[in-house]
């Protein structure tokens, strides 16, 4: 090879290499390198108690390293004889969105990029069609005349479309009625997001960011531990609270007392009282057949 040919072919080769490097450039955004332990981790349902202990220890160290706060991560199992149901009083909801932000705070949702499990829809009077709802309202004062407010989050369906379509069974409905996600098993294909009729499932397009001062250290494996880029997440009725007998964060913060939560298998619970005595408009999009555990009702 002579000098000219050498120079020509090396210029070509270099520009080819440069073009390949440019094409691979988006990989620079990949910040979440998975650990080997996490890569070989089994599905939640196959984990032994020892496996779970090791996993919880790993999560504790990861969170401590990132946030400098030592969390308390536990795996909460569903209680026996319990099936949760959530009732929301549409006569009382004033659309203040406190539930949205209480949920964000309790469950360590990403602040920027923003993640909110609950969407409050401003509905015109006379309509029960969620497609006519407006989630972006921002008036000076709520409630506004002529409208009512309907917060929508995961309906924890009895016949959920999301668990049916998941190709890897990373999401399923537990015995207490809550549909949970194993974040370490989810592959991020977003079939569940496509299948859900309520836009309840959220995808982490970027690495979630939670400010240190607002981190909730009381975490659960299936619930509010910090998620990673590329996995799905959704409302899980605060498993870290409800599976120890407490109410979800949205329930406790609602100033109008529009939210009611409890065990439907207990005939003395508030939710049993509501379903027996109130004008319940049953479920959103009931014709789709998911049979949600979330009921909206009216007082008068």
């Amino acid at each position, binding site marked *: 090879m002579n000098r000219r040919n050498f120079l*020509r072919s090396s*210029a*070509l080769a270099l*520009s*080819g290499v*440069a*073009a390949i*490097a*440019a*094409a691979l*450039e988006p990989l620079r955004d990949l910040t979440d390198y998975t650990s080997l332990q996490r890569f070989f981790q089994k599905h939640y349902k196959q984990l032994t108690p020892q496996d779970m202990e090791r996993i919880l220890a790993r999560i504790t160290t990861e969170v401590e390293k990132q946030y400098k706060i030592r969390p308390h991560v536990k795996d909460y199992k569903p*209680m026996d004889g319990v099936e949760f149901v959530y009732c929301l009083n549409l006569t*009382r909801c*004033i*659309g*203040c*969105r*406190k539930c*949205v*932000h*209480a949920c*964000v*705070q309790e469950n360590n949702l990403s*602040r*920027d990029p*923003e993640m*909110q499990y609950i*969407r409050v829809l401003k509905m015109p009077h006379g309509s029960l069609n969620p497609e006519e709802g407006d*989630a*972006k*309202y*921002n*008036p*000076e*004062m*709520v*409630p506004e005349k002529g409208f009512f407010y309907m917060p929508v989050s995961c309906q924890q369906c009895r016949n959920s479309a999301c668990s049916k379509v998941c190709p890897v069974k990373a999401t399923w409905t537990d015995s207490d009625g809550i549909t949970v996600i194993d974040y370490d098993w989810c592959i991020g294909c977003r079939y569940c997001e496509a299948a859900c009729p309520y836009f309840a499932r959220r995808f982490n*397009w970027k690495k979630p960011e939670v*400010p240190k001062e*607002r981190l909730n250290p009381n975490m659960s494996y299936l619930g509010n531990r910090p998620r990673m880029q590329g996995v799905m997440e959704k409302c899980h009725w605060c498993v870290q609270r*409800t599976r*120890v*007998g*407490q*109410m979800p964060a949205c329930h*406790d*913060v*609602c*100033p*109008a*007392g529009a939210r*009611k*939560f*409890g*065990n439907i298998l207990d005939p003395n*619970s*508030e939710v049993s*009282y*509501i379903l027996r005595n109130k004008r319940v408009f049953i479920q959103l999009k009931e014709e789709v057949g998911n049979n949600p555990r979330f009921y909206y009702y009216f*007082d008068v």
Partner: protein
Amino acid sequence: MKQNAKTSLVLLALVFVFLTLATAFHLNLWGRQGPLPRIALVDTNFLSTATARVSAAELFSSPGADTSDFDCYACHEKGKAPTIRYDAAGTIIIPTEHKDIVMGHGTHGRNNNCFNCHNETKLDTLQSRDGRELNITNSPSLCGSCHGPTFRDWEAGVHGRTGGYWNTKLGEMTFKACTACHDPHHPKFPGRKPAPGPNPLHPIAAKE
């Protein structure tokens, strides 16, 4: 010779194009969304589980609280019913000493008479519709004497706010008195400024 020169020219042009593309991608000249404005953290007032008001029951049970508003006999004579003055339309005129009270109880102000709820001779107690004398902190019994269905719902935990535990074997479920949320003189639940709505991820959606 000419053929060789043409090939070299084409190859040189390709090299130039590839290098330009490489620079463009590396410097993010196009194909990337611009940075969105930082989303501010929500005001912690929106995260508070405090009730809209402080009920008399809570006021009396919190140490060091200022209960001077409930000291009726600082001004009124014991055993003497205060005189109510009415204007030409028959509406009660709120005296200037009680000017912070805004009356608005019932449609068309049907329940705006002070002595419908307050006992005329014992001003620090309340009287229900059926004549029972009630403690000033006992708003549920007073309000429930007219608002029966609401009271029944409240006792079941369905009206108003409950807190604590759904599983009463593990902890208590707490109830709130009526006046923790409703101003007894103007009971309609007040409106408020809503917390901020959703911020979209994409700048195009942000412009809508």
